[in-house]
């Protein structure tokens, strides 16, 4: 678990480092600050369980087992990337790991997860679907349509709303009549909880129950996970300088860093000694370095490949 959180964090930090060189030409929406959510949820999932994700999807993909080398190659527009350079940072997919795809259309991914869950029921398998989405997706009609259908048909879906209080620069209070998203979701007659999205253990346990419930045919569950994004909506910079959000708000949330909190817990409880943590960090750095080398050294697609894969 700690390894995974570290991987997501360090992967994104590497993107921050590399991006200014201007050769990763794809808009990046960084997951830094949200790590506990993807980690806590996905560690409960089987390889063949489904995940649908959004524009801020790197964390979900790594947590669901995708290869950082192929992800980074994709960001660089390389032929070796997950989508042969056609998707980029906002569009990752991996059928082998159950990743249905990341949609950069707000709210676009919810119905996909519901549909995969419908397929699971029709096929009589036990696969569970998770939809990851932001508080922005709650604004959309597809939120309502997806929750209603999933609950109506008692489908094995877990809705995971990563409420970071902003959609681009728009605060939740400028968009939602009810700031309590979990409560809104209750209207669809499914269990609905709101948890601290920066506490990986809580997320993990809540998700475990929800996923078990789904797998045993009892229907969908809604989880609102409150968290905060550290970086700008898009790109490697921080946006508080530009006046997008109050600095104090960010500072408060940085104090509640999900990685740090989990690290301290592990140390306090003597689960993992500091030395092993350092070793893990080193290992992750190595993996990422390797991914960077792989990505940078990979060939670009050739122009004629444009015409492939349309049908």
């Amino acid at each position, binding site marked *: 678990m700690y390894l995974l959180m570290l991987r997501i964090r360090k992967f994104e930090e590497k993107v921050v480092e590399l991006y200014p060189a201007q050769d990763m030409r794809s808009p990046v929406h960084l997951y830094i600050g949200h790590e506990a959510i993807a980690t806590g949820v996905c560690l409960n999932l089987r390889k063949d369980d489904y995940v649908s994700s959004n524009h801020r999807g790197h964390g979900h993909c790594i947590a669901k087992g995708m290869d950082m080398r192929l992800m980074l190659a994709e960001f660089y527009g390389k032929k070796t990337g997950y989508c042969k350079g056609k998707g980029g940072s906002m569009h990752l997919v991996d059928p082998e790991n159950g990743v249905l795809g990341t949609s950069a259309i707000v709210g676009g991914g919810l119905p996909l997860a519901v549909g995969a869950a419908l397929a699971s029921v029709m096929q009589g398998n036990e*696969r569970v679907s998770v939809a990851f989405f932001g508080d922005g997706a709650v604004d959309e009609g597809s939120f309502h349509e997806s929750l209603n259908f999933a609950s109506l048909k008692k489908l094995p879906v877990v809705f995971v709303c990563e409420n970071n209080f902003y959609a681009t620069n728009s605060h939740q209070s400028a968009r939602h009549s009810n700031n309590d998203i979990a409560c809104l979701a209750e209207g669809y007659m499914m269990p609905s909880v709101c948890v601290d999205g920066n506490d990986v253990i809580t997320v993990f346990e809540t998700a475990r129950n929800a996923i078990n419930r789904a797998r045993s045919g009892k229907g969908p569950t809604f989880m609102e996970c409150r968290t905060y994004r550290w970086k700008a909506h898009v790109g490697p910079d921080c946006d508080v300088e530009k006046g997008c959000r109050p600095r104090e708000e960010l500072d408060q949330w940085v104090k509640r860093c999900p990685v740090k909190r989990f690290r301290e817990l592990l140390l306090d409880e003597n689960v993992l000694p500091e030395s092993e943590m350092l070793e893990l960090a080193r290992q992750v750095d190595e993996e990422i370095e390797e991914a960077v080398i792989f990505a940078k050294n990979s060939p670009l697609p050739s122009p004629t490949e444009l015409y492939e894969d349309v049908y």
Partner: protein
Amino acid sequence: MDLPVDKVESTRASGPAAEGKRTRTYREALREALAQAMERDSRVFVAGQGVDDPGAVFGTTKGLAERFGRQRVFDTPIAENGITGIMIGAALAGMRPVLVHMRMDFLPMSMDQIVNHAAKWRFMFGGRVNVPLTIRCIIGRGWGAAAQHSQSLQALFVHIPGLKVVMPSTPYDAKGLLLASIADENPVIFVEHRWLFDQSGYVPEEEYVIPIGKGVIRRKGRDATVVAISHMAYEACKAAESLEKDGIDIEIIDPRSLSPLDDELIFDSVKKTGRLIIADTGWKNCGVGAEIAARVASDALGYLKAPIRRIATADTPTPCSFELEKEFYPSSEDIIFTVKELLNKSPLSPQPYRR
């Protein structure tokens, strides 16, 4: 009215020619295709408003719920965008959904999932996934359906790479193209015309597919080429009968698929006749007629002996009053008028046709 099927059908499209004896309506042909696809392939299912009710979408899904169970043939909430996305998700997870809409006017509700998701999924992800989804929808005309219940919006989908669009006009094509659409790995917009449901014609019992992208010559002729889409193929046949009496011999091409389009078939015909008219069920601006005209103006321009004309619904929303509907919808009369106009015309005397 019977739609003559030229022998060319057997060479240019798959499936036997028309002289077979098993006769079915367009409606029955659709139902048979659905039933056979579901029988053979457990991944196929049918969803949509009213597919399991007594009306059964003009009878096209009649009996399917009873036969295959309500897990595979089910009603949905009126939530077109969400439901379309759910069908895409099911398709990604290995199913082959057939989503049914009573009217094409409801597709704009789900434009986001169709245009931004279904059409993009395969390409955007480098061909690693695909969306084998068939979206059936129905167009029509008449009885004051008015502006929100009458639109023939195929051009909106033809514009989008990643989608296929078909518009069968005969029972034979309805079955063969529906089976082809369900078997296709890509999203297909399958457009039916309400006025065709009662048409009957030869429909083989066994399964067969008509390749998406193959048009057919409905009538051979030498004086002008009329490309006629969906129900307009019947109007063109009517026009041909009347024109024949005046010694005018038109060739009628039914493209059947609009995306991909069998433009070679059209080019060959224009090379022979030198005159082109496109008769569509939808609007003209950026419509299917425009696309066909533009391709011919690019690739067969030198063969034209007269201007290219488009026949389409008027440049207005659909009116309710039957008196205005007459003016709004094109008919065989318009085809006759335009063919005659073109025969008297050199490319240098344009005088545009009203529509």
